[in-house]
């Protein structure tokens, strides 16, 4: 297990180095370089030179990469070209919103998807199974931003049941602890804030959960079906074990293996979905920041964001892989 962990960690470092190299190369290959974006169109060559020197662009490429890497490790991605503020500050301000939204979404997806997939498998061929399967296929094929927008139109604008935008009703006082509003409200005892934040989270979280939910339901169903046909489940039945022991220890423990891995993979699409969902609900997470960075070609900001997301994605997948090794003893031996 230790060797497995060390090996995965090494792979992670290599992957991140490769990624930083890729990003750096991309950054360097941008048309005209970043200095053009930072100077007015009528800048003189001298101004241009001065800026290049200030940015260290006249140094050899490898020195530049080394500096870039060194700063990136210290989470220093430079200043945003649009706002002029440090990118790490911008990200730190906005990440909690995205994390909170993603957590809710993945919780919904797991909480609904796994039981639903299990039921669909057990009731294979019934209307429930059919609904779950076709529903998940449609879910996978529905653009997230469209679903988000429709939910907003129906439940916020037409029915008026839920707020249309933001994380809290504007003007609400709250105490910031973790940046996750619902959690903060519960910690500080400001239950009205927690409730308020939760109401604001429901629609975006549902929209964001749609694809993970669809995928988890499908995988769980397929996986449970496969496991139900396995000999060891028959053995468990032949032992006369209680139904819940068979379901938990013999069916679900095996059926969860592919599901866990898929959850790791879904995190990528979750980040992407968050960008889209947040912009529909003006949620104020990194989504809108990235949206702005993309349209305004704020390359340093974009690069910082991609690095942060890639690191967390790779790290989360490491956790998933490790838990996989923990769940399946055969993996430990194989690696």
């Amino acid at each position, binding site marked *: 297990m230790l060797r497995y962990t060390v090996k995965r960690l090494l792979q992670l470092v290599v992957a991140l180095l490769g990624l930083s190299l890729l990003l750096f190369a991309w950054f360097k290959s941008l048309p005209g370089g970043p200095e053009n974006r930072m100077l007015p169109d009528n800048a003189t060559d001298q101004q241009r030179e001065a800026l290049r020197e200030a940015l260290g662009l006249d140094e050899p490429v490898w020195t530049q990469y080394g500096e870039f890497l060194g700063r990136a490790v210290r989470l220093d991605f430079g200043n945003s070209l649009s706002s002029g503020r440090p990118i790490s500050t911008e990200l730190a301000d906005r990440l909690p919103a995205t994390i909170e939204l993603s957590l809710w979404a993945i919780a919904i997806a797991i909480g609904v998807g796994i039981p639903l997939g299990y039921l669909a498998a057990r009731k*294979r*061929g019934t209307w429930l199974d059919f609904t779950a399967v076709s529903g998940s296929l449609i879910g996978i094929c529905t653009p997230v931003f469209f679903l988000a927008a429709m939910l907003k139109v129906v439940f916020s604008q037409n029915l008026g049941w839920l707020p249309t935008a933001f994380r809290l009703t504007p003007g609400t006082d709250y105490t910031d602890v973790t940046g996750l509003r619902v959690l903060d409200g519960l910690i500080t005892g400001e239950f009205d804030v927690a409730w308020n934040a939760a109401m604001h989270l429901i629609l975006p979280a549902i929209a964001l959960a749609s694809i993970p939910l669809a995928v988890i339901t499908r995988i769980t169903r397929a996986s449970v*079906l496969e496991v*139900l*046909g*396995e*000999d*060891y*489940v*028959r*053995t*468990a*039945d*032949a*032992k*006369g*074990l*209680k*139904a819940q*022991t068979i379901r938990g*220890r*013999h069916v679900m*423990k*095996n059926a969860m*293996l592919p599901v866990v891995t898929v959850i790791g993979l879904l995190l990528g699409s979750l980040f992407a979905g968050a960008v889209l969902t947040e912009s529909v609900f003006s949620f104020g997470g990194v989504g809108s920041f990235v949206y702005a960075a993309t349209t305004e070609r704020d390359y340093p900001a974009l690069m910082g964001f991609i690095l942060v997301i890639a690191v967390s994605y790779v790290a989360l997948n490491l956790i998933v892989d490790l838990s996989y090794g923990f*769940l*399946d*003893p*055969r993996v430990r*031996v194989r690696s």
Partner: protein
Amino acid sequence: MALLEVEDLRVAFGGSTAVDGVDFQVDEGQVVGLVGESGCGKSVTSLAIMGLLPRQSKVTARKRHRGGVTVSGRARFEGKDLLTLPRNEMRKRRGQELAMVFQDPLSSLNPVVRIGVQITEVLERHRGLRGEAARKEAAHLLDRVGIPDPTRRLTEYPHQLSGGMRQRVLIAIAVACAPRLLIADEPTTALDVTIQAQILELLKDLVDSEGTALLMITHDLGVVAGLCDEVNVLYSGRVVESAPARDLFARPTHPYTVGLLKSIPRLDLPIHEPLHPIRGSIVDVIRWKDGCAFAPRCDSVTEKCVEGEPALVGTEHAHRCVMAEEIA
């Protein structure tokens, strides 16, 4: 009274009949063989007795006969019909009074659960043993089935064991609660020849020492000869011959049994003596109610064979062949 009495057992998947009226019995402490080629319904018979058919059967899951399994007849165990027992009652008996050893030891053990847990969960369920007591008993069981260093093995996973050891584990699980009846479904088919003999020896020892009855399901007449007191030969879902083992080998009566015995390669015959395989395959059948299902493959077939349902004739050594006298 017999320990297990199977009477007119029928199992159908959707429209196709797998078991077509099987009768046999197993007495207290007896070793009974159920012999036949693949597809004759011997495994389905055992699963039906164990009550494992409707949901979990691989056959059903794969072929998508959803709930299309119909089981009828009787399987009286100590006087109670297992087929009509409520599910919970059946669960209590499985693993405790009736236990089963399966064919493929690797796939029959849960790959992600430690060996120890897979044994102790039976002890916990049926004997109420928990914690250290359960672990001790599990180690004792492993020791009894001949696994060296049992305490270490308890913490291992199935993939860390060899094929023979896995089958020993499955046997340990099956005998954990000292069942009255043990069903072994081709327990040696997936193993190396050298291991096969050891496993059979182990089964025989366990059964003898505990007075457990054993229902041995196999296609291997060699296994039957070495182990069984009584033998039932199955063809196309029905018993065609039933006799004490010695008697069956001495005087096989049904042409199918004769064919099975003849098709075994023998070293004590002249080298140029050709083998006598049975013609065709088990798919060439007539339905039993129209005549003898074996008729299309039988060398001694006459018109009499397809004039209605052949009956099981005889008591001690019974057979289901209308031509028996003429052939003999």
